[in-house]
């Protein structure tokens, strides 16, 4: 770290973002905007079907904004960690490694959720989780295969 005395007057060197409350809040904002983007575009289509084109247009525009905002938060998180796995990310190799790790871990998480839903009597939701677990596993394998191909001399 450079000594504070060498910084231009009125500027401070920023502390590391990782493991801070700000980082957690940035991740929460990323999650919120990602979820809101999905909801807004989904609700826009429902509005179209229900014959509410003005509402649909407004919701689509909101969805676009949320998606852009989510990417803004993701840009800032590159200083710290990838929010799904806590791994470093930023370039394609690191991004794909992080996602492959997410798929591996999430396939198991979805299986556990499937068992919980089944024990609580929600057969359909249990089956949904189990279907996602299979898909996560397939996606993990796909990315792992791509990484292997890329790493080969």
């Amino acid at each position, binding site marked *: 770290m450079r000594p504070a005395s060498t910084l231009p007057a009125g500027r401070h060197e920023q502390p590391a973002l990782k493991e801070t409350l700000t980082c957690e809040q940035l991740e929460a904002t990323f999650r919120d905007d990602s979820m809101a983007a999905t909801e807004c575009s989904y609700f826009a289509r429902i509005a179209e079907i*229900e014959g509410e*084109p003005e509402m649909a247009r407004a919701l689509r525009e909101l969805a676009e904004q949320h998606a852009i905002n989510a990417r803004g938060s993701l840009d800032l998180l590159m200083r710290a960690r990838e929010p799904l796995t806590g791994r470093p990310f930023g370039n394609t190799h690191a991004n794909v490694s992080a996602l492959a790790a997410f798929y591996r871990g999430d396939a198991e998480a979805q299986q556990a959720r499937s068992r919980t839903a089944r024990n609580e009597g929600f*057969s359909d939701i249990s*089956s949904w989780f189990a279907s996602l677990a*299979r*898909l996560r596993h397939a996606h993990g394998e796909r990315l792992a295969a791509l990484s292997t191909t890329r790493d080969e001399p």
Partner: protein
Amino acid sequence: MTSYDAGSIVVLEALDAVRMRPAMYVGSTGAAGVMQLVIEVLQNALDEALAGKASNIRVTVDAEGTWTVEDDGRGMPLDMHVSGRPIPEVLVSELHAGGKFKEGAYKLPGGLHGVGLTCVNALSSHFVLEVRRDGQVWSGRWALGRRIESFRRVGTTGVTGTRVTFLPDPTIFGGERADPQAVERWLRSQCWLTAGLACTLTRPGGTVQFSSDEGLAGFVRWLGGPHELVHPEPIVTGSSGEPQVDAALLWTRAFAEELVCFVNHVHTPLGGAHADGFRAAVGHALTRYARETRLLDPGEPLDGSDAMEGLVAVLSVRMRDPHFEGQTKTRLLDTVAGRAVEDAVGSALAAWLRGHPVEAAAIVGRAIEASRARTASRRASERARYERVEHLVDKEIYRQQFGIRSKNWHTSADWITNAGLLGLHGGSSKMSEDSVILDVCCGSGVVGASFKGKVGRVIGLDLTPEMVALARTRLDEVILGDVYEIPFADNTFDGVCNREVLHLLPQPERPLSEIFRVIKPGGQFVVGQWVPFSAVDGPWMFQIVKKKQPLFVNNLYDEDMRELLSGAGFVDVTTEEFLQWEDIDNWIATWETPPLHRHQIKDLYVHAPEEVRAVHPFEISPSGAIRDCWRWVIYSAFKPA
């Protein structure tokens, strides 16, 4: 290392570009792409009719799949192009050459605007253009977009018109054919949309002719024909100006809506701004009328999708310079058209409702009925969930749904009576000719009936009295009962058969253990089930099926089925697979699938991820009709001797 310099840049000849990326121009290299070629040629003929210069379109398709489209319009201009070639030759061999780019020749043209005829030429193994104009007959011939015979004068004539003959290139389209019935529907539609137009379609097996002076009213009457009507006469609305909006509406007792939209006579199967405006107009007009007349309880909601349920409608918009999503014009983007449709249809429909109080009460009553049914269906689904927590199944929900569906059971989906699929069930039998088998959850009894002649006696079991009555016409004996508590003693049957039910049954292990219990040692169990093609299309299929059928609880993969069977104690599991094409529009036109879900199911197909498309075959035709390929697996398993 590859270099990226001037030498690596390939400039393709126009028609080579089309042949290299055909789907980019005509949407598909399957049957839908062939259909698009036919439509492109037809659209050119229609443009002459819309310009008031043609009144007849004659279409012929022969047994080899060669199409001929002929109109009695002006014929293409025979002047020389600045390139020194006759204009018709330029029109079929240059992209973006056509009379539709300049105002004057055609006021509101359809087609791909200068791309269409050129694409047809490029993608045909045989292409002949014949023009009759100014007392002369001119003709030219091409193959795969390459000129075989130059376009030249070949005779004289007293009539005018254009004739195009082409055979879609089998090396591009793999021998796929355009569906003559879809062409028939297109011609029929255009006769209703275009006053004074007569069309003829000749195909192996006969000729049909169309012409009508009934306009859009005739069109909706024809669309609504198979259904019971809520009101006898169509509601017809029209507005002049820009855009010009014409519509006809007819409410039926069917579950699905059918809104057929056109922009400048081009069918837009995915709708767009004009369809959105139409839905808004109908929803608002009916809701406002229902509130004004107190047909709707205070505070009771009425969704736009409820207002559309059972509605058969045709919407025609004519406008200058429309903008579409994609080259094949499946969805209109202009919001100005949406607002024009909302205003025109909304005000006309509101006035009609006020002037026809008896019919209006029937139409609004239909929408309120749909809304209340949707609410009841959701509640039933919630109730089913609570029941399941206690490991019980609410049999009343099954009885209600399948009781209603029994009325049109055999026509409600192809898979139910598909002979190939049923044949694999009966054909799996390893039982002796004097065996007695049980068809559990037998429905109308078609699966059990597929074992007839192979076993001695087939007994059916079903929960729904209506289905029991249907099955009694096919099986030797049918009993009202529950698969969770099969009303027979242990080791009663030589075999049990079942199809496409386990995915509706919470805790499928329980009915399977019941089935195992009633089979004699050494007896056979034959069960058919559709399954996803792979892990990749599983969640996508889950969403489609769950939206169609709220009772769907188990997305069963092939591995799950094998595990369930071995878990129940069955051994020697063998399988046979069957690919079956289902008409999705028909499959989702049922009581248990609300209008919103029908739209969302279609969206799931239209926007299916590439990853899914790579493993799961399905087709969307230019008219928007969806056919899905279902992977059926028929499992044969045995109770240990």
